[in-house]
């Protein structure tokens, strides 16, 4: 066996999307195949998309031109090419009115006041036009506005003024924006057409994929948030939960995360009717040090109800400084430059249980005899390589299921396929399980500063409000 062994190559075409009327490798086909579900699959009491009567575009009064453009395109589709975007209702087979309303200043309270004057939050969805800000700024207008709406149990969608002005990006973003709105209304745009992990007896086995992470407050390192996101074996969203942590107290952190896990486990098991329940945990090592990592591992070990699962597998996913190129690889730029991008999904083994997986690089979505169409999901930059490490010391192993490392790595790649934010990208840099750690943490912390517990908000708890 060679060092740095080429382990496997996961292909996007092996993880098709399931829509209401069929499956496809391309998320864009939601227009012809229709969204998978108009209400949450795991929370029947939530009505979902059909309860909404209005999408309200909220804009600053000096930006009326931009708002008008967005309104017309959302209503009627892109004038120059309706195939790219046929309009919100036309694309997602809904019947929701779309209107505009202006506010005078970029003040989250004022924006919310204007919104609430237009009807009940149960029926009106806010689409807010804001200036572009750096997402790494904690107290930006983006996070403050999102938090203001969430504090009232209202999910929202933000579109930046820069995006509307940037013709080339804007036209390709309209469908993604619509899909995000659809998901935040409680719908399920699409899921994977296969299980992210194959088991011998799927009829009696349920697989839950959990994202687990810790994020520190960007300004006060002693404060942080632990969070859980939960998906099923097809990548269908189930629920999220979070807990505020004191980052300087390892035992307290462990205890709080263990409580979070207990709550989540009891919810998973209460909704499963299968004989065997398997849990795969993706935990994110981003922004956390040895102390936090130990807290997470102790929490997994100490969560008493963990042993109610037939098997528990734990994968730590983190960024890496590893760069891989494919010499003379097939991807070329428009001017013919050979880029050496590796194929998306190529995975190397560094040591037993430790793998390096490329989540950006080149891909080919053509199937079967179709002409190959080599594209890349990275633009003039280096490929992203994630380290995925299996932590057997905290797992509950059950040899009955015969789960291999490749099966577990497949859960990571499968979850990278799920992306409602940039649908032209077939594979995201990070699996959806851990991708939104910053959004979840920062907004949870901001809400906590205003004495609001996001996990107790009934309307947003079961939807992907953080997209």
């Amino acid at each position, binding site marked *: 066996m060679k*060092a740095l062994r*080429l382990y496997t190559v996961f292909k996007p075409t092996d993880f098709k999307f399931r829509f209401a009327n069929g499956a496809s490798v391309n998320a864009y086909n939601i227009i012809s195949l229709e969204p998978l579900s108009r209400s949450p699959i795991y929370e029947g009491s939530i009505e979902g998309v059909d309860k909404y009567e209005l999408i309200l575009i909220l804009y600053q009064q000096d930006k009326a031109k931009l708002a008008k453009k967005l309104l017309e395109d959302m209503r009627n589709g892109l004038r120059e090419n309706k195939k790219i975007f046929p309009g919100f209702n036309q694309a997602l087979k809904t019947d929701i009115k779309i209107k505009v309303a202006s506010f005078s200043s970029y003040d989250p309270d004022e924006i919310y006041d204007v919104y609430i004057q237009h009807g009940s939050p149960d029926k009106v969805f806010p689409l807010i036009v804001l200036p572009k800000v*750096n997402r790494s700024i904690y107290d930006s207008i983006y996070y403050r506005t999102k938090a203001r709406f969430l504090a009232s149990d209202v999910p929202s969608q933000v579109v930046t003024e820069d995006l509307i002005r940037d013709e080339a990006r804007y036209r390709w973003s309209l469908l993604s924006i619509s899909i995000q709105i659809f998901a935040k209304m409680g719908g399920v745009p699409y899921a994977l057409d296969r299980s992210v992990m194959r088991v011998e007896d799927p009829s009696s086995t349920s697989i839950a994929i959990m994202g687990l992470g810790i994020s520190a407050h960007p300004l006060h390192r002693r404060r942080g948030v632990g969070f859980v996101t939960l998906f099923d074996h097809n990548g269908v969203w189930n629920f999220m939960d979070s807990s505020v942590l004191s980052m300087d107290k390892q035992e307290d952190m462990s205890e709080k995360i263990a409580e979070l896990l207990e709550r989540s486990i009891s919810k998973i098991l209460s909704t499963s009717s299968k004989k065997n329940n398997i849990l795969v945990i993706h935990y994110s090592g981003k922004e956390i040090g040895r102390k936090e990592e130990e807290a997470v591992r102790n929490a997994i070990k100490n969560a008493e109800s963990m042993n109610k699962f037939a098997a528990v597998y734990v994968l730590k996913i983190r960024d890496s400084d*590893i760069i891989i190129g494919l*010499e003379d690889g097939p991807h070329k730029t428009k001017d013919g430059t050979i880029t*050496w991008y590796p194929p998306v999904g190529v995975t190397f083994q560094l*040591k037993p249980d430790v793998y390096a997986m490329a989540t950006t690089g080149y891909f080919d979505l053509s199937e079967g005899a179709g002409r190959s169409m080599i594209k890349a999901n990275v633009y*003039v930059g*280096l*490929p992203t390589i994630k380290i995925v490490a299996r932590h057997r010391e905290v797992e509950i192993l059950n040899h009955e299921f015969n789960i291999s490392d490749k099966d577990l790595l497949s859960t990571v790649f499968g979850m990278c396929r799920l992306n409602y934010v940039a649908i032209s990208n077939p594979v995201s840099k990070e699996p959806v399980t851990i991708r939104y750690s910053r959004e979840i943490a920062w907004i949870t912390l901001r809400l906590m500063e205003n004495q609001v517990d996001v996990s107790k908000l009934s309307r947003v708890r079961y939807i992907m409000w953080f997209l």
Partner: protein
Amino acid sequence: MSGYVTNFVKVRSSKDTIEAYRITGKVNLGVLTGVINRYAEGLVASFLSTDYGELKAGVYVAGIGDYHPCEEDVRAKIEDILEKYREERTAQGLPVDESLNINNIIIEPTSSISSTTYVVANLLNNFLSKVVPRELQCPRRPGERFAVCLDIDFLEREFWSKKVVDKDERFIDFCNDYPSLCRDTGVSCSKFFKVVKCITMRFQHVVSDQEEIYLVLHQHYRRLSNLDLKIVIDYIRSNHIDLNTLLGVRVNYRTSKDSTWVCKITSINNNELMLECEGRNIHIGISELDSVSIAINPTYSQSRKFIGEYLCKEFDKHKDLNRLYPSGYFSILENDLEIVRRIIGKPCIGRVCFSIDRRLKRVW
């Protein structure tokens, strides 16, 4: 046949086993490791928090170079540095970890530790920060183990003029186009910024049918900034720029080791300035700026606008240098490999010397 090229470089050892000691005892072993690496000349340490294969948990300590201390020497050295640690912490008014007492420490020699094992990769990593000259090291960013920052003058003097490596044309062209971003020209940009070649490196333990150690290299171009508010104010005053141009600029106000406020400058005159920090107004005298840590935060649009208009128009230009495909990246990295080989030389620890290959690892 095309294969995968990686940023891994094979590291070869002169012997199969390393000579080292293992320290255990009722002490905070993590802190002890830091203290040894910071204060002990001729020793390098690595902390293994849990058993790893046949390696037992503990602090592994090895001599640097050809030196292999006897057990008494190690004990005496540790006793000395613990005293140094206590004195320094006390002088700085910082808490002292009382468990760090030589009587709580058990030192035992190890036997047959493979020179390619996990703990050796970590010893080599800690060795880097001890032997690479401080002036070449740059502040680590999250996730980085060790980094060197090389400016254009150093590269020219040490490598290009001596023809050790090919000239890195990309960086030279950039510095010709924007000299004040690369060199001390005395012009505004050079007062606040310097673009450098940054090479991060770490030793990685790899296991297949055998254990191996690789050096993982990564290069990029980085902008080093010094946007200390005092320096900025002195500059705009001496250039007769209105102090009010600073209104709305965001600054990082570091209030303690663990806490930084992001504040907005809401008023300023020749004597004092007012910051709005998380809803609080804070007055600071201009003469007090020497004793606090306040620097412009260049992430915010208002700060960027100020920097671009009054300090350095091209301050973001280094980003163009980092726009590379892997094909271009690896050709630069092959070049940088020789630079790294020269900078770190032939590391020797625990009576084993390690040599670094001249080629990047390829996988088929």
